[in-house]
């Protein structure tokens, strides 16, 4: 899933949703940086097909009240079919229910995959090419009409209309039957053949094995949309609610007000509560104003929260008062310096960059809180990914810059003063500060650093242009589900190297790596995650095509009367579905 907020500027393309099957602790009690990410973890551990409805409302909840959410970001769209950014999907989780959902599990302090509108997590056939979901009884839209299986089938067919409704997730095009030919219900008048309905059963046929459909079914795409009520581009202004809250007022770009949906039945929903009367979201607010409102904790500020990561001065203030109102956790995305394999051909030079990169200096200079909003790491796959192998090619733990070693390697490669060209945005003071540190670090490591100036507006375009005069690209990736399957075929496939928009930012074209990927895709589903973990290690050890510059983390704050706010490690967002006003 795409990231919300400023990270959008850092992460290049349609980065995918982060899912941490097994996260770390988010206790924030000491004045030391809190390690936000635990090690490893199995994806299977993150599923609970038997979770029972209704979800209990905590004892300290005071029913009613208004929860206010302030954010500097503006959600891109709230159309369930198009929602792909983490903020949109997290907000829509209150409004439009999908077939499955992620539910916060207090025992593991992590999200688990649980049924939502479906009675279970779906039933695949033997080779994962056909999935059947059964809808619960008693599901209703906000207007009191029943949610029918046909509506879900229609919503799925709607997701193929990527021309009319762009920017949503696109796995259906790749994996679902006729995904490459069907163009959605607006262009193709004949119904979509890949989904069949019988009673409450919805059966989805695949064109190739898709073992991770249960995760994918949690996207708002898989909600119910009655064909008669579909207003195409307008639908995002008031999607029909199936969840505990419905749209009262939506002003795109500035605010959204949600009120209780009287037709939502808690006995059909194992993952959500309906405690507050009203949610008020205010978008595009000033960061300093947001943080001050919440930190001062007076009046309305007590029932206010934000899903923007806090800035260092606010971290200091909130820690000084005990840090109880700080919620931290994982949002596993990996930031990388993709080294252009066409230009930097010597692996010693590439490794020297890894030694010279001033990790901690850059993080701090760009306003990240080390260990909290940015976590050191060396594997491409972030913690929480199934089968992840924790390795350390350079032996510097992803943060101990070693300029001497860099110089040695450069001398060995006979490339003293090798020129590194990278982009920065002149109108963003954080980008400029990061650039200054990189220049300093690279020069200390024996490189010549040439920062290439760009502007915030143009930098993404310049980065995804294969002919840009740069030889490293700063970007990142987040996963849609906890397996290398949503990482390597999307970025490290030689076939992607010459495509528009540089989906393969390192221009990584190695025959043996491509062959290995093909092998893994054909493996038994249970062996796949571990094989991706090994593959991760293999490419970094053999080729070192990217410098891992840390994983993302979440650090968000709330007013003292907001209860049930945990980190949704899937999205790096608050657990809206569990939240209430305390007594």
């Amino acid at each position, binding site marked *: 899933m795409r990231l919300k907020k400023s990270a959008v500027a850092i992460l290049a393309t349609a980065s995918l949703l982060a899912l941490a099957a097994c996260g770390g602790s988010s206790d924030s009690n000491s004045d*030391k940086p809190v390690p936000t990410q635990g090690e490893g973890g199995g994806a299977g551990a993150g599923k609970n097909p038997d979770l029972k409805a209704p979800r209990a409302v905590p004892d300290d909840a005071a029913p009613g009240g208004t929860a206010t959410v302030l954010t500097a970001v503006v959600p891109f769209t709230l159309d369930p079919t198009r929602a792909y950014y983490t903020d949109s999907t997290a907000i829509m989780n209150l409004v439009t229910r999908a077939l499955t959902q992620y539910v916060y599990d207090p025992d593991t302090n992590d999200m688990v995959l649980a049924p939502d509108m479906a009675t279970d997590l779906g039933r695949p056939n033997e080779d994962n090419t056909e999935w059947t979901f059964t809808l619960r009884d008693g599901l209703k839209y906000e207007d009191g009409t029943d949610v029918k299986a046909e509506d879900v089938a229609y919503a799925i067919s709607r997701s193929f209309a990527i021309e009319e409704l762009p920017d949503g997730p696109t796995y259906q095009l790749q994996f679902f039957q006729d995904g490459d030919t069907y163009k959605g219900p607006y262009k193709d008048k004949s119904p979509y053949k890949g989904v069949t309905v019988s009673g409450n059963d919805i059966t989805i046929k695949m064109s190739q094995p898709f073992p991770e459909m249960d995760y994918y079914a949690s996207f708002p795409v898989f909600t119910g949309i009655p064909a008669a009520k579909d207003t195409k581009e307008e639908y995002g202004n008031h999607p029909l609610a199936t969840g505990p809250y419905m749209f009262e007022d939506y002003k795109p770009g500035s605010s959204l007000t949600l009120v209780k949906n009287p037709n939502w039945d808690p006995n059909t929903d194992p993952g959500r509560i309906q405690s507050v009367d009203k949610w008020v979201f205010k978008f595009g607010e000033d960061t300093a104003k947001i943080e001050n409102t919440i930190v001062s904790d007076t009046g309305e500020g007590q029932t206010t929260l934000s899903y923007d990561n806090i800035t260092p*001065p606010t971290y200091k203030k909130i820690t000084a008062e005990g840090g109880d109102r700080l919620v931290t956790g994982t949002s596993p995305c990996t930031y990388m310096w993709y080294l252009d394999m066409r230009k930097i051909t010597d692996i010693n030079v590439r490794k020297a960059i890894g030694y010279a990169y001033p990790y*901690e200096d850059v993080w701090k200079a760009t306003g990240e809180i080390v260990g909290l909003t940015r976590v050191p790491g060396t594997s491409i796959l972030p913690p929480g990914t199934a089968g992840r192998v924790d390795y350390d090619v350079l032996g510097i733990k992803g943060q101990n810059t070693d300029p001497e070693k860099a110089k040695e390697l450069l001398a060995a490669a006979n490339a003293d003063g090798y020129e590194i060209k990278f982009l920065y945005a002149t*109108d963003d003071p*954080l980008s400029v*500060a990061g650039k200054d540190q990189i220049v300093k670090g690279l020069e200390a490591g024996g490189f010549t650093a040439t920062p290439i*100036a*760009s502007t915030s507006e143009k930098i993404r375009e310049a980065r995804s242009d294969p002919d840009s005069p740069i030889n490293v690209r700063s970007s990142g990736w987040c996963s849609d589900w906890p397996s290398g399957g949503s990482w390597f075929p999307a970025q490290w496939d030689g076939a992607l190297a010459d495509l528009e928009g540089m989906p393969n930012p390192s221009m990584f074209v190695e025959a043996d790596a491509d062959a290995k990927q093909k092998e893994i895709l054909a493996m038994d589903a249970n062996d796949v995650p571990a094989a991706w973990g090994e593959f991760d290690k293999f490419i970094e050890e053999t080729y070192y095509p990217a410098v891992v510059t840390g994983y993302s983390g979440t650090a968000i704050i709330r007013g003292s009367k907001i209860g049930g706010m945990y980190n949704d490690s899937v999205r790096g967002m608050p657990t809206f579905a569990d939240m209430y006003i305390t007594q």
Partner: protein
Amino acid sequence: MGRLRSDKVAIVCAAIVVIFILIAVFAPLLTRLFGVEVRAGDPSTDTDIFNFPVIGPPDHGFTWKAPLGLAPDTGDDNLAEWLYGARTSLMIASISTVFATLIGITIGLVAGFSRGWLDRVISFVIDVFLSLPFLLAALAVAPIIVLRFSDRPGLLKWATFFSLIFILIITGWMQLARLIRGEVLSLREREFIQAARVMGVPTRQILFKELLPNMVAPIVVSFSLTLPAIVTAEAGLSYLGIGVIGQPSWGQTVLKAVPYFDTYPLYLYAPVLGIFVLVVALNLLGDAIRDAFDPKTRR
């Protein structure tokens, strides 16, 4: 001059301006004197887990290692940035003001003295330039310059510097030109000019020998009031991220320091105070000069 000297406010303001000019001129010397320098700091050693500096304010006492403290996040030295910020500010302000004044005088003289079509053409041009939105022009030019010189950091620094000066000049000369034109219109019918023309004095000589000396007052006043306006404009543009690139600037520091207004006030106050004191001093000095040149205004 005597009137100016007897004005205490003017003397104090002049002294302040002189001090700022000395700071700007001797910025490299002063930084060396304090043992600080403009450079990328060492965040990993100089800042704590909250990205706040480990020496000096706001958490620790005064230290000569960093008299104005270090910047949070980056660990850059605030005093060095401030001194060089004064330099950038005054350099841009003085160069732009001098050129804008020269252009304004020349065009105003020509327009006022030439009757007929040339006057109309020049007046039209002045009107066109007056309708140029200064901020929009700056916003449009900045990214063009950045992308044009993107791969030459050394050139980029000066390109943005001079493009900023250029924009300040082409949007800054019109007021004076109009003022001068009006003055010339009223002066050229006076007897001494008529006499000069009858005697066959060349036009250029009439313009510069006869007319110009009579307009020293408005020119000096305009100059002294444009200067602070440009100091503010430069800081404003830097705050918007479209000012100079690769050199310290008060506006940039203010932009970075705003989120720290309550946790690290000194970080914000230093550049704000710099801009404030300099602009107020220049403005008051300008007022005093106007009063001194114009006997009719009495306070």
